[in-house]
């Protein structure tokens, strides 16, 4: 198990190194000098040169790459071209919204998907299964911003249980923070949960047809016992894969929901940075997201091994 984890870790580091190279050079070859862009077309050459020096643009590409990577390793992502503030701080603030939101949404979607998927699989072809399948069909088909608007309409405007948008900040306490993220998390979780429930159902149905389920029944386990003791764990592998993908998406893909609820998240930051050609911010956020995706994959790999002993052996 330890060997397996170390091996995965090594591949994580290599992937990060390759990703950082690709991101840096792809963005660097894009035309346009950030310093002259920031100062406008009428800027004096010496002002531009001074700004270039200030931004660390006057050294070789390799040196700049090393500075960038070295900075990130020490937690210094550099300075935004547009806002002239520390990117670390900018990302930090946004991350404190996006990360909890993604985790919150993923937790909710799991809480919806697991029971629904298992319930439907256990009652294949019966009314309960059809109801779940119908509901998940809707959940996938309806866009999440529509859910968001409906939730705002019902729970914020009519019932006044939640605020209609904005984020109060964590300094108001954990409860208040979670409270203001609840409606966005639900709107993100509904479509994701619907997909996950379907994956859980079909994966479990595959497992229910396996020979070892028949063996379990021949031992004297009831259908239900066999499903829980032998079915669910075996069905988890595809579910974990989808969960990993969904988390990576939730981290930066929540831009529409962030917009609907006026949340200062990573999605909006990237959107603004791209619009204002703040390349170094884009670069840093993309790198951070790549890191998150690779890290999540690493964790999913570890979860696979925890679930399936065959993977532990195959180092």
């Amino acid at each position, binding site marked *: 198990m330890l060997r397996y984890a170390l091996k995965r870790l090594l591949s994580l580091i290599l992937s990060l190194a390759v990703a950082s190279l690709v991101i840096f050079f792809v963005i660097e070859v894009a035309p346009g000098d950030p310093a002259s862009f920031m100062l406008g077309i009428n800027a004096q050459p010496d002002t531009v040169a001074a700004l270039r020096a200030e931004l660390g643009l006057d050294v070789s590409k390799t040196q700049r790459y090393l500075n960038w990577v070295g900075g990130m390793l020490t937690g210094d992502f550099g300075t935004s071209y547009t806002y002239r503030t520390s990117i670390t701080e900018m990302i930090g603030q946004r991350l404190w919204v996006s990360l909890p939101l993604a985790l919150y949404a993923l937790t909710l979607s799991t809480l919806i998907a697991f029971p629904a998927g298992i319930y439907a699989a256990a009652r294949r072809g019966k009314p309960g299964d059809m109801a779940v399948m119908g509901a998940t069909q809707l959940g996938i088909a309806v866009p999440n911003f529509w859910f968001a608007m409906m939730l705002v309409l019902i729970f914020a405007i009519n019932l006044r249980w939640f605020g209609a948008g904005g984020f109060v900040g964590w300094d108001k306490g954990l409860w208040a923070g979670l409270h203001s993220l609840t409606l966005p998390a639900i709107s993100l979780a509904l479509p994701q949960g619907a997909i996950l429930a379907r994956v859980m159902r079909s994966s479990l149905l595959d497992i229910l047809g396996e020979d070892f389920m028949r063996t379990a029944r*021949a031992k004297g386990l009831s259908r239900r016992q066999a499903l829980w003791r032998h079915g669910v*764990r075996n069905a988890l592998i595809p579910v974990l894969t989808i969960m990993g993908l969904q988390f990576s998406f939730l981290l930066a893909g929540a831009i529409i929901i962030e917009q609907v609820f006026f949340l200062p998240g990573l999605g909006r930051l990237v959107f603004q940075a791209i619009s204002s050609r703040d390349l170094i911010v884009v670069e840093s956020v993309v790198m951070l997201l790549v890191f998150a995706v690779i890290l999540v994959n690493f964790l999913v790999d570890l979860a696979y091994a925890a679930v*399936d002993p065959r993977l532990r052996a195959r180092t």
Partner: protein
Amino acid sequence: MSLLDVTNLSLSIHRAHILRDVTFSVAAGEIVAVTGESGSGKSLTAMAVMRLLPDLARLSGSVHLDGAELTDRTEPQMCAIRGRDIGMVFQEPMTALNPVKSIGDQVAETILIHKAMPRDKALERAREVLDRVGLPEDRFPLSRFPHELSGGQRQRVVIAMAIALRPKLLIADEPTTALDVTTQAQILDLLKSLVADYGMGLLMITHDLAVVADMADRIVVMRHGEVVETGATKQLLADMKHPYTRMLFEASGHTVTLPDAPAETPLLQVQNVVRDYRLPRTRLLAPPEHFRAVDNVSFTLNRGERLGLVGESGCGKSTLTRAILGLEQVQGGQILLDGKPVFSGHHADRAVRRKMQVVFQDPFGSFNPRHRVDRLVTEPFHLLDDPPRGQARRDAIAEALTAVGLKPDDARKYIHEFSGGQRQRIAIARALIIRPDLILFDEAVSALDVSVRAQILDLLADLCRSYDLTWLFISHDLSVVRTITDRVLVMKSGEIVEQGETESVFTNPQHPYTKSLIAAAPVLPDLGQLKRSLDHA
């Protein structure tokens, strides 16, 4: 009163009648074999006794276990009986165990669901049972997972789960069909000794009459969901009353006469072939280790000769087959067909490759279900530089289908419209269509029922006369190889340990491995001898 009494058991699923008035009994300490071909209802009879049937199944008649009626039990009551009073062993040991649970947990589970006892006590008991089925603690600790065991070892674990609570009745559904002959012999011995030790009744479902004749005290022969004949093994075999029983017996021991092989001109020459597989690195910087699947194998197959290749699973038969077909590159030696190497550069030579074709085992998996038969059988045409088109193509298809006993009209059908035996005929037609010099049969009749297998063997013998075929027949089934080949190679751990005229190898094996293979293979009893011994008694 017997231990198990099945009386007038009928089963229908969705209005289809699966079983009709099935009646038989099993006494304590007795081995009763239910035999018949696929679709005869033998497995569903076992499942009906266990009441592990699909939701829509309707059951009538009675099943008495130790005097108590089972058919009117509720599902929870049946759960209490399954595993405690009736244990069951299945055909496919590779998939019968949960891959994510240790063998100790899986055996202990049988005990824990029926008996209130602490987990460590149940594990202790599981240990004893595993010892009993021949999996000692030093090599098979409870923490082992199924993927760390071979097929035979896994079947022992399944048996351990089934007998952990010493049930009165053990049902074994084709328990050795998926195993090698030597492993099969060991598992059958284990089952016999368990029946003797525990006084259990054993209801064994098998299609293999040779196994039946060797194991069972009594036989139940089934066809189309009905019992056609039943009786004590020796009496029944000595005096088979029902024509179906006689047909089964004859088909099981079916032999064919091959035309004489022509003068010796080498067609396929395999010279010192070595095939290595790279194993995953055990240490980061250490050079990768290799597994030698085929080790310095040499033989010659003459034109017109029928050569057999036998050996257990994992011995390298299939690897060698793939190498001959040019599907894999070998690491040493060379393979010549008609004097030309099969492999040139890094891929198979088309001009050489078109001289051979292959027929695989699985008549269900080896066809694309979305293509019609005409497209399926003409697949080998892609090897030709100028494949026949239009009328010539239609004629070739019609000829190939007719040669294997199908109709030219079948060309427009899809593969799901055919039975297993017909599909195997189509596979043979696909191999014949470009008139290859050599055909490789890779376990080509292993998945077929005995009666169908007999027909396919007859077809091969006929084709041999009309087409001058040369073949390499790869099989684990010794009785088939014995009748369908002139010469045989015996393979073990990647090496050819013995080769010679088929009949002389079988009657007078030289290598100890060949001897053990032949000794382990179950054989049909000699009926004349059986009758004489009964008359004396």
